[in-house]
């Protein structure tokens, strides 16, 4: 059952950008590129690490309110300790700006 749920989650993640027409464009980018490590819940390496280094209240990126767009762009392009960098061939500068906007719009 766990396996089935996870498999379905991955599939939904991939197509959610197309289905959720009212979602901000950065949401689909996050789901596609970041969620596999940074979504809420167990089995996410980035969330696990941030819980240890920053504390549980700062572990889930989509729930953070303290992130700055320039910081996000820097971390994506340069990586941060455990996280590897992302190349412009994977996420171009325009997409990165959308991603940074999504993570800094103060959503709860």
């Amino acid at each position, binding site marked *: 059952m766990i*396996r089935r749920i996870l498999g379905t989650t991955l599939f939904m993640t991939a197509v959610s950008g197309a289905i959720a027409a009212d979602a901000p464009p950065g949401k689909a980018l996050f789901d596609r590129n970041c969620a*596999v490590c940074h979504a809420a819940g*167990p*089995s996410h390496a980035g969330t696990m690490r941030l819980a240890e280094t920053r504390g549980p209240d700062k572990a889930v990126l989509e729930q953070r309110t303290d992130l700055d767009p320039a910081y996000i762009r820097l971390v994506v392009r340069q990586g941060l*300790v455990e996280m590897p960098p992302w190349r*412009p061939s994977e996420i171009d500068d325009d997409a990165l700006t959308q991603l940074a906007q999504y993570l800094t719009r103060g959503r709860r």
Partner: protein
Amino acid sequence: MKPNLPPGISATAFADALEAFRKIVGDAYVYTGQALSSYADPYSIVSNEDAHAASAAVAPASTEQVQAIVKAANEHGVPLWPISCGKNFAYGGAAPRMSGTVVLDLKRMNRILEVSESDGYALVEPGVSYFDLYDHIQAKGYKLWLDVPDPGWGSVMGNALEHGVGYTPYGDHFAMQCGMEVVLPNGELVRTGMGALPGNTTWQLFKYGFGPYIDGLFTQSNFGIVTKMGIWLMPEPPGYRPYMISFQREEDLEQVVDILRPLKVGMVIQNAATIRSLLLVAATNATRSQYTDKPGPLPDSTLRKIMAEQDIGMWNIYGALYGPPTVMDTLWTVIRDSFSKVPGTKFHFLEDRKQPNDLLAARADTMRGIPRLSEFSFINWTGGGGHIGFSPVSPIRGSEAMKQYTMVRDRMHEYGFDYMSIFAIGWRELHHVVELLFDRRDPSIKRKAEELFRLLVREAAAAGYGEYRTHLSFMDDIAATYGWNNHALMKLNQTIKDALDPKGILAPGKQGIWPARYRGSHT
């Protein structure tokens, strides 16, 4: 910032080459300066941070653009380092072997050209990741499984070309490859196997075509740039049952491997099963600091505490059964009875596992071809991000597995590192993949890790074990260990290299193969 130039190339000549590349792909897809930070190896083990620094990167969108770039590189004498998805982390990521090389980033070539449900194959470009192909198959509703390695963001093509492995019955990725399209170092385009026959309908069905089987020449090599590749996909079986078998003592490894050999060679164990060490399993849902704040090897009492808390063994087999229920029942009876001979053996299924991030749940996905990344939680064990794989190959024999294990474990403990590993079981061999974790921010730890790694390579080679794959920084070291008959194999590789790539523009130093223009200055 002073530009990093390819060796022997003037700033003017380099600028001319970049201008030529821009005319081919457009200004937006030639990267220089700050953008190159994303092409650095984030987990570099060597103290020289510039050892594998790119001078630029160029990202074509088509085979025709790759051909044009290769021709321009020949004209200007500029070396290229092809990458597919660039996620070969722990082996160098997107970085080139030789500092100053231009990365040829093929990520934008990400088309899934064909999937045949009836014949069970896909034809893909280099930038197609496991996530991409999985999503495509699901969206189309094909009853096909792909075989995935642990990093789901990796390239289907790149992993097969690097001799990577996965965990279904199709786990030997290069064995499941069928048909390539290759841009040669002079820009000429070649199709291998049946692809050479105009109008053929069997390019992804029959590997060998007519004449020498040359696809292997384009794996772990610098003889060509593969732009299309066929990969066989497994028909969805009528049943699937993942399992875990745990063993309680270190010394059980010998008996476990000897039991496992006839089961694997006789195909009773159907998939590319793995034996995982205690700490590698534990590290997927816990960190070292939860158990100790002291450096050095963990005492037996702590190891036993981890085993009890996580309900895992000192060694843990992760495998799966595939087929109709009656077939799975019969195979399981043989497997269970065989391993029951080891005292203290425990058998586990998904429904028995209580931990929220239990590894069997992740393995249950990867052993049926669902791509994930969650197992990389293991790098959180000590924190600091750095990790590198030491990957010697041995027979599937208990005495050899124990010899490798004790040899590597003792050295790792001597240097202050925890031992964590996977024994991945192939058709006739064990890949002993040892994960060496280090803090990438600590130069003194990195120096120790580098020293340890080179020592392990030498000691393994002296015992007759060679690595199947390695990080950029150790390609020369490991190539040198394959030195039978006065390095006859390397001489052959160099002869091929010089014939195909006389100007030495393609991936200098890949797997220790240097073109004539750099030979001597780098080896």
